[in-house]
C-alpha cells in the first residue's frame, strides 16, 4: 500500500493543530503545573465554567476521534471487548476504555493523567451517562452531573431551564470550587462568554458561506475543523477568537476568488453536487471518505454533525448578561437533544437555504442517538423537498465497520441519481 501524501493545510488548520497540541501538553503536564483536569463531553460542554476555575478540559470523545484518525482505535476497541464490553455499544466508549487499558497515551506521546473530576454534562445522548459511570469505576474520582432534559415536544420549558441552572448553582459550581480551591467569579464567566459569543458569530459566518456558489467550504469534512475550537477546550478563549479571524480571512479570500474548499489534496475545483449530510463522519478512514466526495465533485454545504456541540446557526449565542441561564439554553439546544420532527425541520431548511441537491445520511452503527429514526427522517425530508436522499452506513471509530467499496458504490449511485433527477427536471421543463 502506498503511503498517503501529506495533506494540504491552511494556516487556520496549522493554528488549530498548535492549539490542540498545547492543550494536550497542558493536560499531560498537570502534575508539574498543579492544574486540575476535568473530563467532560462535547455536547453540553461547559468550557467557560471550567475555565473560571482555571481547570483544563479533556474530552474523551475528541481523544477517541484522535485515536480513530491515527488508526489506533481498532486495537483499543478490541481491548475493551476483551474486557467484557459488548460489540453492540458505542465505539467512542470502547476506544476510550481500551486506550486506558493500553496505558492511556495522549496524542503527544505522554500518558494522560487521571482526571480530577468527571463533569457529566448529559446532553442528547444516553450513552454519556453510562460512559461516565464506567470511567468513574476506573478513575475513582469525583463525578458531578448536569442532567439536561430532552426536547421531547420540540421546545424548551422554563422548568427545564430552572432545573439545569439549579444543578449548576447547587452542585456543579460548589464541586468545582472544592476541587479547584478557587472561588467562583461570575464576572469572569461573563467575560469568557463575551469572547464565546464573538467566536460563535464568526463560526456562523463561516458555515453560512456555503450558501455561495461555488461553496468556499466543505460544511462536513471541513467544518469538523471549523467547529473544533468552539466545540472543544477553547470556547471562551482569546485563542478561539483569533483562530476565527484567521479562518474568516482565508474563506473571504476563497469567496473573492470563486475558489472551492481546501481538501487534503488541494483546492476542490469542480462542484457538481451540493449535499446536506446528516450524522457524524467516520474517523478511521476520514481522508478516504472525504476523497470519495471531492473526487466526484460533491461538496457538503450543510451538516447536522457540525451542530452537535451547539446550534449557533439557529441563533443561539452565549449571553454574558444571563450566564448560567445561557449555559442551560446552550445545553438544551444541542442538535441531538432536539426531537426528530425538529431535526427533520432543520434538515429541510438546510436543503432549501443552501440550495442543495439532496440529503445524504451517514448512519453510524454504534450511535443510537443519531441513528435511530434516520430512515424515517430521510424519507420525510425527501417528501418535503422533492430532493433525493441516500443512506450509507459506517461507524465512528471502529474500522471493522467501514467498507470503502460499499460506501463508494453507494455514493456513486447517489450522485448518478441526482444527475438523473436533474435531467428529468430539465426535460420536463
Amino acid at each position: 500500500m502506498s503511503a498517503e501524501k501529506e495533506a494540504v493545510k491552511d494556516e487556520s488548520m496549522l493554528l488549530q493543530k498548535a492549539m490542540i497540541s498545547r492543550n494536550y501538553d497542558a493536560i499531560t503536564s498537570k502534575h508539574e503545573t498543579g492544574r486540575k483536569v476535568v473530563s467532560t463531553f462535547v455536547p453540553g460542554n461547559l468550557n467557560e465554567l471550567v475555565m473560571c476555575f482555571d481547570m483544563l478540559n479533556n474530552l474523551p470523545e475528541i481523544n477517541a476521534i484522535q485515536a480513530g484518525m491515527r488508526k489506533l482505535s481498532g486495537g483499543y476497541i478490541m481491548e475493551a471487548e476483551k474486557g467484557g464490553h459488548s460489540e453492540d455499544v458505542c465505539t467512542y466508549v470502547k476506544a476510550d476504555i481500551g486506550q486506558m487499558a493500553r496505558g492511556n497515551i495522549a496524542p503527544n506521546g505522554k500518558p494522560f493523567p487521571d482526571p480530577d473530576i468527571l463533569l457529566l454534562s448529559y446532553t442528547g445522548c444516553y450513552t454519556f451517562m453510562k460512559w461516565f459511570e464506567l470511567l468513574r469505576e476506573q478513575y475513582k474520582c469525583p463525578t458531578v452531573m448536569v442532567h439536561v432534559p430532552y426536547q421531547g415536544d420540540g421546545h424548551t420549558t422554563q422548568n427545564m431551564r430552572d432545573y439545569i441552572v439549579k444543578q449548576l448553582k447547587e452542585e456543579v459550581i460548589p464541586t468545582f470550587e472544592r476541587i479547584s480551591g478557587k472561588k467562583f467569579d461570575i464576572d469572569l464567566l461573563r467575560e469568557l462568554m463575551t469572547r464565546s459569543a464573538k467566536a460563535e458569530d464568526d463560526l456562523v459566518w463561516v458555515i453560512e458561506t456555503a450558501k455561495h456558489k461555488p461553496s468556499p467550504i466543505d460544511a462536513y469534512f471541513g467544518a469538523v475543523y471549523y467547529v473544533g475550537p468552539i466545540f472543544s477546550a477553547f470556547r471562551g478563549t482569546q485563542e478561539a477568537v483569533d483562530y476565527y479571524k484567521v479562518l474568516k480571512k482565508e474563506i473571504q479570500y476563497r469567496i473573492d476568488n470563486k475558489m472551492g474548499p481546501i481538501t487534503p489534496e488541494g483546492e476542490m475545483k469542480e462542484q457538481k453536487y451540493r449535499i446536506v449530510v446528516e450524522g457524524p463522519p467516520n474517523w478511521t478512514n476520514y481522508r478516504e471518505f472525504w476523497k470519495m466526495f471531492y473526487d466526484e465533485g460533491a461538496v457538503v454545504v450543510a451538516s447536522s454533525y457540525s451542530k452537535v456541540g451547539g446550534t449557533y446557526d439557529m441563533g443561539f449565542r452565549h449571553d454574558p448578561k444571563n450566564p448560567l441561564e445561557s449555559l442551560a439554553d446552550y445545553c438544551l439546544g444541542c442538535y441531538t437533544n432536539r426531537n426528530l420532527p425538529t431535526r427533520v425541520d432543520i434538515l429541510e431548511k438546510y436543503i432549501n437555504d443552501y440550495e442543495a441537491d439532496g440529503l445524504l445520511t451517514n448512519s453510524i452503527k454504534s450511535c443510537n442517538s443519531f441513528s435511530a429514526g434516520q430512515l424515517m427522517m430521510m424519507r420525510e425530508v425527501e417528501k418535503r423537498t422533492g430532493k433525493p436522499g441516500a443512506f450509507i452506513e459506517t461507524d465512528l471509530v471502529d474500522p471493522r465497520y467501514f467498507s470503502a467499496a460499499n460506501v463508494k458504490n453507494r455514493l456513486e449511485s447517489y450522485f448518478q441519481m441526482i444527475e438523473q433527477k436533474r435531467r428529468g427536471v430539465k426535460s420536463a421543463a
Partner: protein
Amino acid sequence: MGTQEIVAKCQAIFDDLNFTVAREWKAAKPGRKVIGFMPVYVPMELIHAANALPLGIMGGGDSMEVIHGDAYYQSYICRIPRSTIELGVTGRLDFVDMMLFPFVCDVIRNLSGIWKMMFPNVVSRFFDTPQNFDEKIGGTYYEHELLELKEAIEQATGNKITDEALRNSIKLYNENRKLIWSLYDSRAKEPWKFPTWEIYLLMRAGLQIPVDEHNQMLKDYIAAAHAEDKPKRDNSRIVLNGSFCEQPPLNLIKSIEMAGCYVVDDDYVLVNRFLTEDVPLEGDLLKNLSTTYLKHSVETSCKYVPKEEDKGKYLLNRISQCQAEGVIFAAPSFCDPALLDRPMLSHRVSENNIPSISFKYAENSGQMQPIREQAGTFADSIKLWS
C-alpha cells in the same frame, strides 16, 4: 380458581396482539380512553385517575411478523421499536388515544418523535424522569413534569384528574405493588411453586387490564399457588438482569427454568414494581409520586447512580434477599442501557464471588437450544462448584 385457569387467562391476553381486552374495556362505557406506554416507567396512577386505561406496549413479541417496521430501522437497532411501529402501522393500536415514551434510551426517545410524525392524530409525549435525585433539584423539576403530564392527560382524555381520583388510583397501585412484591417474595421462598413463566404472564396481563382486576387476579393466583403442591427440584437459584425493556420470548423464560434454574428475581416488566414503597396518600400527591420515585425506586440501567459505591448495590441486595446463587445477564441485542451497564454489574457480582453468565436475545429469538445449554451448564456449575 386454580393457577392453571388464571395462567390460561393471562396467556390469552398475552397472545392477543389486537389487545381485545383493552378494546372491550374502552368500548364498554362512553368517555373511556386508553393511554399506551413503553417501558420502563410511567406513573400509571395519573392515567388511571383520568378514567383511562394504562396499556403497556412491550413490542410485538415473537409471534408477529415485522414487515413495515424493518423499513424504519437499521439492522443494528434493537427489535422493540420496529415491532412497535408494526403494531401501529397495522392498526393494532388504533384505539389508543395517547402514547407515552418514557426515558429509557435514545431509541425509545427517538421513537417518540417518529410516532409524532407517523401518527399525528395521537397525542405522543416523551416522558422524562430526573437523573438528579435531590428533592430540591430533581424533585422540583419532576413535580413540574408530573404536573405537565397530568395536564396533557386531562387534555387527551377530556377528564379532569381530581385529588380524590388520584388518591384512589394511588391506593389501588400501592396495593398492586404490594401484591406483586409479595408474589416475588413468595417465589424467592418457594420458586418451585411459582414458576417464573407463570408470574411473567401475570405481569404482562397486568399491563392490559384495569388495576383492580389485576389486584384480584394476583390475590387469586397467590392463594392458589400456595395451596398447590408442586415438586421441589434441585435447581440453582438465579437472578435475571438486563431484560427491563425489550422482552424475551416466553420460550426463553421457560427454557431457563427447564435448564435447571429457579429464577428468584428478575427485571421483566419493571413498571409495576418500579416504586419499592407505598406512595403516601396524604398531602401533595404529585410531590408524593415524585419523592417516592427519587427515594424509593429500583436501580436499573436507565437511572443514573450518583455514587460509585452504590453502583450495583440494588442487584447485590436482591441477590442476598432472594438467596440467589448466581446471575444471568440477559440483554436484548443492541440494548445500550443493559449492555453498557453489564460490565459494571458483572464486576460487582464477581467481587462478591457470585457467578454469572451473559447472553443476548431479541424478542423474536427462535433458537432456544443454545440458551438451554448455556443456562444448564451454568446451573450445573453452581451446583458442582459454588
